[in-house]
């Protein structure tokens, strides 16, 4: 299983980086979104995959069932998802503002960082 998802992560990473290198500001944003998906999946895969056994403790048990999924990567991904969400929303609005300010959606055109130039 891990091999399959490792390959999928690779494809997502490649697509993300390819898009980051583009000139249209929306494409760059898409690249960021793809990369953040890929990374969540990568953390998950690296923590091993367990089909159909949630890391929950039953009502009358004190320990989760044997072979239950690894809870740590899940907690890490949860944090990563929420922070990634904040980052992406910020990037989205930043790109919009940059477009609004410069009148161009071409990232290579957004060069006037300083007033006096």
């Amino acid at each position, binding site marked *: 299983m*891990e*091999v*399959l*998802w*490792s*390959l999928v992560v*690779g*494809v*997502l*990473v*490649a*697509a993300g*980086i*390819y898009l980051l*290198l*583009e000139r249209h500001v*929306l494409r*760059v944003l*898409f690249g960021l*979104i*793809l990369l953040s*998906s*890929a990374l*969540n*999946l*990568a953390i*998950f895969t*690296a923590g091993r995959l367990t*089909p*159909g*056994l949630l*890391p*929950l*403790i*039953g009502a009358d048990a004190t320990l*989760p069932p044997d072979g*239950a*999924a*690894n*809870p*740590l990567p*899940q*907690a890490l*991904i*949860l*944090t990563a*998802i929420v*922070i990634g*969400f*904040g980052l992406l*929303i*910020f990037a*989205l*609005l*930043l*790109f*919009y503002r940059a477009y609004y300010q410069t009148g*161009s*959606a071409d*990232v290579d055109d957004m060069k006037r960082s300083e007033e006096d130039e």
Partner: protein
Amino acid sequence: MDNITDSPETPNSQKHVSLLIFPLIPIVLLFSILSWYQPEGVSWQGHWIPGLDINLSFRLDGLSFLFAGLITGIGALIQFYALAYMRGDGGRFSFHLYLTLFMLSMLGLVTSDNILLLFVFWELTTITSYLLIGFNHEQNESRKKALQSLLVTGAGGLAFLAGLIFLGQMAGSYEVSVILQQTEQIADHPWFVTSLLLILLGVFTKSAQFPFHFWLPNAMAAPTPVSAYLHSATMVKAGVYLLARLSPVYSDSEVWFYALVIVGGFTAIWCALLAIKQTDLKLMLAYSTNVALGELVLLIGIGTEFALTAALLFILAHSFYKAALFMVVGNIDKATGTRDIRKLHGLRAVLVLSLVAAILAALSKSGVPPLLGFLSKEYMYKSGLEASGLITAVLMLANVFMVALAIAIIYKPFFANYQREPIVVKQVESSKGLWLPAMLLAVGSVAAPVLGLGWLNSQIIIPGVISSLPAATPDASKFWHGINLPLLLSVLTLLLGGAVYALYPRWLAKQKKAILPNAEAVFDLIMNGLMRLATWQTRCLQQKRLSNYVLMFSVVLAVILLSQPLMIAPERLMELFQLNFYEIAIALLLISAALVCTLSHSRLLAVASLSMVGFMTTLVFMLYSAADVAKTLLLVETLMVVFVVLLMRHMPRLTTVVRHSKKRRLLHAVIAGGVGLSVSALLINITAQPLDPTLAQFFANNSLPEGHGRNIVNVILVDFRAIDTLGEMIVVVIAGIAAISLLSSQNYKRAPVHSLIFTTTAQIVSTLMLVFSVYLLMRGHNEPGGGFIGALIAVIGLALLMFAKSPKYVRDRLHYSPMGIAMFGICLSFIAGLLSMAFHLPFLTGLWWKDVLPLGTPLLFDVGIYFAIIGGVMGILLRVNEVLD
């Protein structure tokens, strides 16, 4: 400045009383030091960073005592003087504060018994003197000079630190007292000369030795009290102090001897030549400080008993007369508004008290008996004669110039009677603070040797010499040694000094052109070169094209990743044939969605495929037992789509921007492919290794007994690793605030969606979702759910309402501002964390009251998350919708 003649009833006089604390501090310190001090030395130890052998160890021995006494004693007088001098200046409070900080740093420097601690104080003096030199920061010149002194002494400080670390490593300890016991072992060490040279570099920059001498005269940009202090008792003497302190370690080395004697001697002569050319009184004094420092370095280089006695006496004498002369010059400046000796004349009638102080100080500077200056010069010549004729000649030449300078400083402004335009002179001596400190110092120059020589000898000079030369058994210094060669030389020096003064106007007339190369010009040249290099380098690296930056970044990433050979065991790949059909189907859908997103020319198609990627990823998490993650991701993806669609309509189509050339895109594809491939290989290899289950096991075992929760993931988030969650929550809220600030806040009117069914159902559905979100929040600790998931459901419910009605409708229903809600949430979580501290447990430790109610602080924490996320995300969403629709 002009307020000096104002009546004492100005509003400033009120503040004056509270400012008296500043001179009080050094006075108290001085008396404490006097009472603590014992000639054999007292130590005080404290812990700071024991692991790095950095301790708060202080020691007060003869050498430290001399300096500490000068720093606090002259410090008190300077503070008094500054009270009068800076009257009427708006920033005088900060001025006194900086001065005090500087004094404390100096005091720390001369009493530290740990060389790293000493270095900390050393740098503190650099920083505080920067503040003082640049005190008139509205003036460009002032800022420039302050920066110059900071750069020179700061750069020297770096070398100095390296030298100290070498020294500490050689000795095996950073404690001075330990280092001093290992001098033999250090002398044989291969790093000996390296450490010596590095330390000397630091000392020479600090004590303004050639070729770093120029920062000191430039530091004249500071107000006069600062110059008086910096030049007499402190800053520049720090280097001399250090030389004397480390002398037992290094003085046997020839490198030490020649470096100090040559550099010190050269500095003395060179700066004497510069000093005599100056026309600004302050600059004349400044260069003469350079001369004095050169002589001191030279004396410590010689390092004999006589030389060290001379050095200590000279430090004392120089501090007294130099501070007094600077104060007098400050008074002249205040009274006339100029310091130019070509304009000043006939001040003897006005500045009578300053004149008396100046004459006494100048006599000490020239070395006339029975003043302190004479005593130090006697020993200077004694030690010179003991060493070599050349050294004596150098010392004498420097002293001859000192005499000439002293005559010039007194005669020109006070006695000369030019037939020139009369200068306007203000009465400044009605203010005691301006003349009394100078007078005390001047009288001290006479009184100390005449009345207190015995005390000086037993308390300072003899223990001080022993600090620098442990083997020494110095005799008590005395005035009269009979008629001998040093005395004759002293007399000769005075005569020659008079001659130089008489001849020097003529000599000066010939010196129209500067014959001496200017070290400052070299410094400026280097600085400009550095700036040009930085500009060039910036231009090379920053082409202001985002795609180029990303390209560079990705290439580096690809090179690093691909530098490891891609090795995948073939049997791992066999795994692919044992997969379930649905796994392969999801994987293929993911891959094709990613490819569509990459290649599509339509915004909508790209966004649709992106959400496809998101939802397929959710499915993967669901499939492999990550229920919480799947739920959160589903909600996040939904919200993400809402945001992207809202904004996308306001961005141009994908086809409107020129793409990169075909070749360039091919390069991109290769790089992206390379990175992707190596990430895959990396992951495959990682997962081939056995997994360390320790952490997972720990969480599984402790979730119920310690965290009181059955959903391990949630327990990790709100209990075991709650501080991460707290940070993350704050990040989201900050991102929200930043995002909102990117959109200007005009409110646009917006027509709501005209569908009766949608509007009515939206009301019902969003109410249901809000209720459901609270349910998810409450059950989160034991089953999938929790603060995040609940909050996101609530946000989506509110978003629905926002689309159906209007953002204003939602704002009204929320009642509080979204960011206010977010802040409330953050505060709630903090309180949950702080509660445990009230029970003397670490921050964010979970507290439970299971016996009473199924409640605990992690639940409160989760509620905090709930509010923070609702507030943060709703804030952005509402703003986006208001601005863009």
